[in-house]
Structures are given as structure tokens and as C-alpha cells.
């Protein structure tokens, strides 16, 4: 595939980079990333990946755009209120970059459908806001051998880590089971500062790009935490747990689990 002059101009700031070049840009154009959740994390991730020329982007979300989303979900606008989030997200991505093919999945991810949805993608971004979805995405990615970026945001805090098959721990090595219901508030109950999604979701997009072009060190075996109020970033080393029930030496979880989800957890 040869670049058109228009593509050379669009991606010039990438191609000029030694670490990207024409080869890296072609890798991006030939790659596919699935973003689960078109909310606070998924919005900036989707926009940066579309702008970067990731050739195929999948976006999964069952919800419609709500007024309370617009404080942080920058891919949607006031004119999109009531529209399916995946439709609104697709329109924004294609407006940014018509090179990108966008697949939409207007559904909740469940143990029934996740394997079929993730199978066609090179990298998965977890942009969900609830523990059942996070464990489901982790277990499915481990079982399918797919790399993914985990992230979570609440109040003025955010965290992320990257799982790559065969390298470092999975989410379940670190967090064994979902916490008891209502032990941890959802972002609806607790609030979240809008730019937090921008910071952490952009870092997820960065991990996806680095994975695709094969440059730099990923957040494998490390959890990055960000506290906006104290303005501190920390990386915490995390070992792989050989007794992990899903990625360990003798897995006991061999089937996907749909953990119970309280109603208010369902909103992005």
C-alpha cells in the first residue's frame, strides 16, 4: 500500500518520528482496536486512535448519550443527546479521519457475546466503569490471548495497566474478585473530574499505539496511578500470580462469568 500525498500530510508528524516512520504508520493503518465503553475513557481513546489512523476501530456500548455524560465524554456533543453512544462516537471518529473504518456494537458485553466480538481485534481497550465488565474483559482477553489496556477512574484518581499474553500479570492476578456490591462507589455515586477520562483514556490510546508499532515499554507488570489533587503519578510493580485462577499455572476459571451488576452500575 502506497501513501497518497494527502495521507503523507495527515500523518506527517507520525512519519517524521524515527520510532513510527512509514512502517509504523502502515502498521497503524492495518491494525484494529476494540474500545469497550464509549464513555469518559473510551471517548478520548477513540478520538486519538481515529486521528492516528488505526484502520479499524470497534466501539461497544449499549447506552444513549445523556446530558450528564457531556462533562467528560468529549466524543459526544449536545446535539447528540438521546443518540446511541456508538453512533455518536462513530460520527465523530469518521469526521476526524475518513480513513478509519468503525464497527459499532450497541450492546452490553456479556459472557455470551464477548469472545465473538474481541476475536477480530489486535488490541482491546477497557473503558468500562464497573467491576463485572472489567473482570469479564480480563478473563476473555486472557482466554483469547488478546492484549488489553485496563483502566479505572473515580473522583480525582485514575489507574491503568496493560496485559500482554505471556508477559506479566493479568487484572485478576492483582484484583482477585470483584469487590462486594456497594463496597466501592460507582462514578455516578462518587463523581469524577472530567479531565480524568482525558488523561487516563489518552494513556490507554498511547499503550495501544505503542503495542501496534512495537516500540517502547508497555505498562505490563506495572500499575500506573494518578492522583490529580496531589499531582502525583506512581508506578507500582506487580508480579504475575502463578496461582491466578485465570492466567496461572493451573487455572480454575475456564468459563466466563457474568458477575451480578447493580442497576446503577450500568451507566457509563
Amino acid at each position, binding site marked *: 500500500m502506497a501513501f497518497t500525498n494527502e495521507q503523507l*500530510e495527515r500523518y506527517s508528524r507520525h*512519519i517524521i518520528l524515527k520510532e513510527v516512520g*512509514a512502517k509504523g504508520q502502515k502498521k497503524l493503518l492495518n491494525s484494529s482496536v476494540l474500545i469497550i465503553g464509549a464513555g469518559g475513557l473510551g471517548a478520548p481513546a477513540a478520538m486519538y486512535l481515529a486521528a492516528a489512523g488505526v484502520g479499524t476501530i470497534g466501539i461497544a456500548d449499549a447506552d444513549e448519550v445523556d446530558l450528564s455524560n457531556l462533562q467528560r465524554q468529549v466524543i459526544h456533543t449536545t446535539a447528540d443527546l438521546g443518540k446511541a453512544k456508538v453512533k455518536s462516537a462513530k460520527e465523530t471518529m469518521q469526521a476526524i479521519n475518513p480513513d478509519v473504518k468503525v464497527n459499532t456494537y450497541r450492546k452490553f458485553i456479556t459472557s455470551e457475546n464477548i469472545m465473538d466480538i474481541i476475536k477480530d481485534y489486535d488490541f482491546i481497550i477497557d473503558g468500562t466503569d464497573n467491576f463485572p465488565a472489567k473482570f469479564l474483559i480480563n478473563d476473555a482477553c486472557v482466554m483469547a490471548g488478546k492484549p488489553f489496556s485496563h483502566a479505572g477512574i473515580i473522583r480525582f484518581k485514575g489507574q491503568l495497566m496493560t496485559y500482554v499474553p505471556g508477559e506479566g500479570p493479568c487484572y485478576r492476578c492483582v484484583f482477585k474478585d470483584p469487590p462486594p456490591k456497594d463496597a466501592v462507589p460507582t462514578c455516578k455515586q462518587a463523581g469524577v473530574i472530567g479531565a480524568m477520562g482525558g488523561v487516563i483514556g489518552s494513556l490507554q490510546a498511547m499503550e495501544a499505539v505503542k503495542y501496534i508499532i512495537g516500540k517502547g515499554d508497555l505498562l505490563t507488570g506495572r500499575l500506573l496511578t494518578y492522583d490529580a489533587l496531589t499531582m502525583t503519578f506512581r508506578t507500582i510493580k506487580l508480579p504475575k500470580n502463578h496461582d491466578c485462577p485465570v492466567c496461572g499455572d493451573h487455572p480454575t476459571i475456564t468459563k466466563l462469568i457474568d458477575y451480578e451488576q447493580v442497576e446503577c452500575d450500568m451507566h457509563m
Partner: protein
Amino acid sequence: MADYKIDDTVDITDVVCPVTFVKAKVALEELDDGQILAVRMNNGEPVQNVPRSIKEEGHQILKLEDNGDDTFTLIVRKVEDE
């Protein structure tokens, strides 16, 4: 130009900075180590900047020829790094 066996040619007279360099860089990436690229460029800004940028990437500039029509042809030998 007869002095060198040109493996590929790229014309960057149809684009402006920074795409001039980008287009030349992309053409160089397609070549193997030691192969030779001829880059046709406009006089002025491209002649001042593109050869320097290519040199900074580690490639070897062999020659800059005046084509007599306000364009120049730069002959570059690709140097693969790493």
C-alpha cells in the same frame, strides 16, 4: 546521474514542507540498505532543508544536481540503522 545506478526515484515538487521530507523519507524506507534514491525537488526551501534532514536520518548524500529548470535532483544512498 550516470555515475550511480538509481534504484528508485521520487518527485517531491508537488508537495510543501514538511511533506517534502516525509515523502522522501517514505521512499527511502522502501529501499534496502545501500540502494540509491533520486529525489527531484524544487529550488529554494526544499533544497535548503530536505538534504539536511535526510543527512540527519543517517543516510549518505552523494550528489545534488541542478536540472536547469529550477528543480534539483538529490542522489542519496540509503543507510539502514541498527
